[in-house]
């Protein structure tokens, strides 16, 4: 029920992001979704790719500091208010969102949002309990 996201540490220097993309592109890795968290000193690039093990290997080889993080991919109705409904539900159940970002592709007619919760398992239970669809990693890497 969980999706493995790859996080990459980026120093706030020009060309680092381009270098990451070059390495992944050169290894034939396809990025499905991405987001960057930035501070004034550094950034954390978060990506969902089609071949996470290969991506990890080629990035480590080029001396990037990387890690794997478990996130949750949630199907959200592609209408105004779709995301709001889900966030309200989570809020009522006391689940905190650490971060989230949207997927590039769609799952049938729905949007897909990647979430990282402070308690991933509790969040999954709450969402499933409300009849919301959660996508497994295998589905997400190759949408």
């Amino acid at each position, binding site marked *: 029920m969980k999706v493995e*996201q790859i*996080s990459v*540490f*980026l*120093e706030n*220097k020009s060309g*680092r992001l381009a270098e990451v993309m070059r390495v992944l592109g050169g290894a034939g890795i396809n990025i499905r979704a991405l987001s960057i*968290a930035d*501070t004034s*000193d*550094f950034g*954390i690039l*978060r990506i969902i790719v089609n071949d996470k093990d290969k991506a990890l290997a080629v990035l480590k080889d080029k*001396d*990037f*500091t*990387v*890690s794997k*993080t478990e996130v949750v991919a949630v199907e959200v109705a592609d209408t105004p208010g779709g995301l709001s409904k889900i966030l309200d539900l989570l809020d009522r159940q006391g689940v905190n969102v*650490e971060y989230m970002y949207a997927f590039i592709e769609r799952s049938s007619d729905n949007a897909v949002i990647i979430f*990282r919760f402070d308690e991933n398992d509790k969040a999954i239970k709450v969402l499933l309990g409300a009849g919301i669809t959660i996508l497994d990693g295998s589905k997400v890497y190759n949408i």
Partner: protein
Amino acid sequence: MIWNEEFETLPREALESLQLKRLKATVDRVYATVPFYKKKFDETGLKPSHIKTLKDLRLLPFTVKTDLRDNYPFGLFSVPMESVVRVHASSGTTGKPIVVGYTRRDIDTWAELMARTLTAAGIHKGDIVHNSYGYGLFTGGLGAHYGAERIGASVIPISGGNTKRQIMIMKDFGPTAITCTPSYALHLADVARDMGIDPAKDFKIRVGCFGAEPWSEKMREQIEKIFNIDAVDIFGLTEVIGPGVSSECIEAKKGLHIFEDHFIPEIIDPTTGEPLPYGEKGELVFTSITKEAFPVIRYRTRDLSCLNPELCVCGRTFVRMERITGRTDDMLIIRGVNVFPSQIESALMQIDGLEPHYQLIVDRKNNLDTIEVQVEVNEKIFSDEVKRLEEIEKRVVHDIKEMFGVSCKCTLVEPKTIQRSEGKAKRVIDKREL
């Protein structure tokens, strides 16, 4: 102006005779009361009676900073603790500070030496002295304070920090002299100007005694121009007494007169330890000859200078040391505080997961020293969450602030970006032009 005419203008022969008498008394004292020195003497079969002339100074063993560290806190004191009326401390190469002590007579000697220092800058009774050197364990604040009181000046014991308030006081109380680090003086000027005050016109200051960190002729010119004052160099170190080891005279401002009736200076070759003649550059070494609680024998300062015996226009017969031009070790002075890169390294190593790949970038922005600690990220400390990485940066800043009282900036950098080198890594990049 000379505070103590009799001693500061002693003919050389009389001075040397006095030095020998005091040196012998000091050597007798340390041999009898300080186990560390007794052991050192016995190692070479040296006895106090072997010291017959001033040239025999070279027979005595050197003392280095680690000797003080190894005898922390009071192992080198020459009197029982009840005779010690004050302790002061300064940074050591590792976590523990260097601790020194003073008897009542030592405090009196120190006040005398600081009275000479301030008088050499033309400061006298009737002057109001604004003292921004730090008060506390640091010797600067109380050293300058006692000297100013001794000459009968009115002291404002303001210590460091709270710059806007200091400027208000400078404007309202009208001090005529200032004592602080040279970089703080420039910082005061910057903040004053931001407040709409012209340091050259709106203050009554006519002279400043600046020390506790190295500074250049160029910086002196800057300070003199910005404040419209005379800027005089003063020198000292905690291990020897604090400030009050030597001072420039306002008449010449060319080299600092060492108070040779209290301290015997030498310049040695830092590699071989051989004493060098006047005029040659080398490492400054001091032997105290009047201190009671904490005498030091041939203390290697790690500061580089040279001695000039030429008679000075001011009339003092004391030899002059050239302003300090560098050090033989990697110690940094940041906002007047001694910082050893090895201490920063040990602070970093206490933080779980950090690797020993770091670099210190020292710079001076708006006349304030800044220090940036760059640390390499590695998989152990890397977290997907920004706040965890920021926590590490905050921890480094906090631990270093606790250790030195200096605020640094911490930047996480990518692995393998900090230069590895054969042998001693270049840990420090000092961008300051002093």
